[in-house]
Every structure is written in structure tokens, then in C-alpha cells.
């Protein structure tokens, strides 16, 4: 019971945080996305920041506004509190790396040391179904102008990601669809017949009540405006 109580709390905190990010992306005001200091941020909040990953800083990243130092301190604490274990899955390593990159960018003068980029071998020869699932989990990496290994791997397989988007929509997996859709707004050579713009609207109407879906769609909207990745 205790465990499920904790996971419900965490899930609620993740949803709240995602809602704050969505509001900030829509309004342009992101000063109150993260708690205003490490003292106020309890374990559940820190865990929620870790779950949402680099997207907790997304408003600052996409809107190119200076970071709020107090919120940044919370973000840094979350990065440091949850380092990937030696046997962590590639997506865990990469999402942690993405947080480190976001932190480093937001505070280039800070003392935080950026870890080395993890490998992408696990995506070599991956089926389009698995590839899309993994990329959707790593949607915080889908940002304009980046050149990391996952982004390069995604850029080589646009049609496969588009297939994965269709699969996710068909299966009513709105989080995966929204994450894949966010990648597709950046990738070159998306098939015209996909109807991505209408597809994202469809996902929003069907699953946009979920803040984690709404966050990806809002990110996609901003990315579509800022232009392609490669």
C-alpha cells in the first residue's frame, strides 16, 4: 500500500509539474514552473523533476529566456540526486544526460560538469516500433539545432518514426503519439501523406487532457514555428 501511495503521489506531482510547463509554454512566463528553492522541494518534487527530465526547463530552452536561479537549483538537485545506475537502461542514461545538457546550457558559468554522451548502439537495427517507443520516452531530446547521437539516429529514420506515430495513434497511446509527433516536427523528409498537423490536433483532442501529452504537443507547436532540426 505504501508503495502504491508513493507512486500515486509521484504521478500527481509529475502531472502538476507538466501542467506548469504547459502553462509556461503557452503564456511565456516560466518563473514559477519549479519550486522557488531547494528547501521547498521535497523528495517527491525532486523525483517528479527527474521523471519529466530536461522538459522541466523547456520553457526557458525554447523561449530563450534567462533561467530562474532558484528553480535551476532545484533542477540541479534533481540531476544530482538521481544519477543513472551502472546497469541503467539506455533511455535512463540519455534522459539524465539530457538534463545535464539542459542544466549546463541554462547555467554555463556554473560548476556543473557535463557527463559524456552515452552510446546509441541499442538503437542500431531497432524495429520501427521499438525505435519510436524509445524516442517518445526521450522526447525531451527533441530540440532545434541539436546534434547528439539520438537526434542523429532519429534523423536517419524519419519514415520509421512516422510509422510509429501512426501505430501509437491507432493504439490510443497518446503519450507515445505526442512524443513521436514532437520528433516529427523536427525531422527531415516526413511523408506528406502522414498529415502530421492534423494528426497532432487529433492527438490533442483525444488525449490532450493528460498534461504529459499536452506538454509534448505544446513543444511540437513551438518547434514547428522555430523550424527544422537539420
Amino acid at each position, binding site marked *: 500500500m505504501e508503495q502504491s501511495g508513493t507512486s500515486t503521489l509521484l504521478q500527481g506531482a509529475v502531472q502538476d509539474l507538466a501542467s506548469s510547463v504547459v502553462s509556461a509554454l503557452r503564456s511565456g512566463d516560466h518563473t514559477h514552473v519549479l519550486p522557488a528553492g531547494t528547501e521547498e522541494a521535497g523528495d517527491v518534487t525532486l523525483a517528479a523533476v527527474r521523471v519529466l527530465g530536461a522538459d522541466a526547463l523547456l520553457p526557458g530552452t525554447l523561449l530563450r529566456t534567462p533561467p530562474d536561479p532558484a528553480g535551476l537549483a532545484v533542477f540541479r538537485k534533481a540531476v544530482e540526486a538521481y544519477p543513472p545506475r551502472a546497469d541503467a537502461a539506455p533511455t535512463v542514461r540519455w534522459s539524465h544526460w539530457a538534463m545535464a545538457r539542459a542544466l549546463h546550457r541554462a547555467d554555463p558559468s556554473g560548476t556543473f560538469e557535463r557527463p559524456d554522451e552515452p552510446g546509441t548502439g541499442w538503437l542500431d537495427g531497432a524495429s*520501427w516500433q521499438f525505435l519510436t517507443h524509445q524516442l517518445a520516452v526521450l522526447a525531451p531530446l527533441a530540440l532545434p539545432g541539436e546534434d547528439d547521437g539520438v537526434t542523429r539516429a532519429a534523423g536517419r529514420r524519419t519514415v520509421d518514426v512516422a*510509422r510509429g506515430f501512426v501505430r501509437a*495513434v*491507432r493504439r490510443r497511446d497518446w503519450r507515445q503519439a505526442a512524443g513521436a509527433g514532437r520528433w516529427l516536427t523536427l525531422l527531415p523528409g516526413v*511523408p506528406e501523406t*502522414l*498529415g502530421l498537423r*492534423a*494528426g497532432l490536433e487529433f492527438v490533442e483532442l483525444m488525449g490532450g487532457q493528460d498534461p504529459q501529452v499536452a506538454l509534448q504537443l505544446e513543444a511540437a507547436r513551438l518547434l514547428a514555428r522555430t523550424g527544422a532540426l537539420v
Partner: protein
Amino acid sequence: MTDTRLIHNVGVGAMEWLWAHRDGFRLEPGVDPEIGFLERFKPIGELAMICGVLFREGVAGSRQAELARRLLDTTWRETLDGGRMLVRGQRIEPMSPIPFEVYLPYRELGYSQPEIERWAAMLQRIDGWEVFETTPTRRLGLSAFQRRLGLTPRPPEAEAVKGTWLARTPEPWMVEGRIAYDITHCVFHLTDWGERPEGLPADIADYLRTWLPVWIDDWLDLERWDLLGELLVVDACLPRPTLDERAWKAFAAAQQPDGAMPAIREMPEGEPDDVFDVVYHSTLVAAFASVLATSRALSELAGAS
């Protein structure tokens, strides 16, 4: 690429089941007029069409070819009474295209019933027949059948295809079961049931190459074997078939030891006639997909050597 033997054996099993259950291809002369005498003609027409594909492709074993020939003979001579039942059905529902649709594959295999051809020629001249309301894909099929019978199609196929779902190459995430059947049948008509893969316009072929893998993946996981079989036929109609290994293995594994292919998930239980009515189509589709995919796999092997 999938083992050709596995693909071929699906068709071998399917033909054995169809032969063993040939009594299921039956008419019901005393049927309630509300249901309609012509309802039971459809399975017979589909059987003849698939047997025609089997002879055309020439990749069936001698036993398969023998069963196909006997099935055609039996249904033509006994069930259709040498085609006279088609004429009877036409007189019951004079505007129905069904007798003509059922007749065409028999005609192409050398069976003949001149009176049905007179009916077809007469109907083809009637304006009301050209515009009676039906789905665009069915309309395309009727035009294709008119051409195959030697008539001038009304409307021409190039015009008929324009109204179909597939010709517009729409958003692939909107496809659900009924639309998927429209897609498969549109491909059957455009390629003369796999005889002319070049009949697929380039944009449609490209659209299918891109999105067919998603639909195959989807209906495979849903264990909709009937639709999956039709999608595997579509794959075999593409310029470069994938002969998807995962799909073919699961399709083969779903087939029963006696050759029956369940329509959805597992075999239904019930009276033999009722079971036949549920699974005859998926079993015919299994034979169709098998013969076409085998033929394409062998052509690729021949081309590669």
C-alpha cells in the same frame, strides 16, 4: 525474408479445408425474400476467383491444382447448375450485379452461360446501372469486371478509382477495419487480383509501401486474421513485397491443423454450416495470400539467381 515453404503450406492447408467443406458452398432456394436468394452466391464467386488466381500463378502443387479444379467443377455443375442458378438469381433481382460478378471468374476459366452474358451486356447499357448507389471501391470493381468480360466499362476505371479512399492517399492513422477492407479491395481491382502489380499508380504504390507495415503490425497484434490475410495479399501486389516474416509466421501459426483459418483470434464453435460461414472467407484469403506471395517469392529468387 520469410521461408517460402511456410508461405506455400498455408495455401496447401487452406485448399484441403475448402475441399473437405465444399458442401458449405450452398444456395438456399427457399430463403426468406427479405434476406435474398443472392446472399449465398458471394462465397461461390470468391472461391472461383481465388481458384482462378491459383491456376494463373502456376505455383500450386499438383494436389492443390487438382482440388481447385474439382471445386470449380462441383460448384459450377452442381451448386450453380451449370450457371442456370445465376440466371434464376438475376430474374429475382434484375438490377443486381452479383450474378455477373460470380460468373466472371468461371467465364475466365472456360465455363460458359450465354444468358448471363446477355444480362451483363444489357445492364451495362442501362444508365441506372452505372449510377446505382454503392461504395466507390465496389464501383471500381464492377468497372474492372466489365472490362474483363469484354464490355466497355461504365464508368471507365480511371474515373471510378478517383472516388475511392485509397486514391486520395489520406492520413494513414484514420484507417480502421472497414476502411482497411476498402483499401485491400481497391488494390485487388487495380491489379486484377494481383495479376498486374503495375496497375497500381506510382503514388498509391509508394503510399502503401510506406504505411502498409503499420497496418499489418496492427491487425496482426489484434489477431484479425481475415484482414491480415488481405493485407498480406496487398503486400504481394507491391513492386517490392516485404513478405513480412513476423506476420507470415503468426498467420501460419493461427491456421488450424485441418487448414481452416479463423477470421478473428480463434476458431468459433457451433454447427458446421455456421462455422463454415464464419471462416470460409478467411480460409479463402489464406489460399489467395499464399499463392500470390509464393509466386512473388519465387520470382524474386529467380530474378536474384
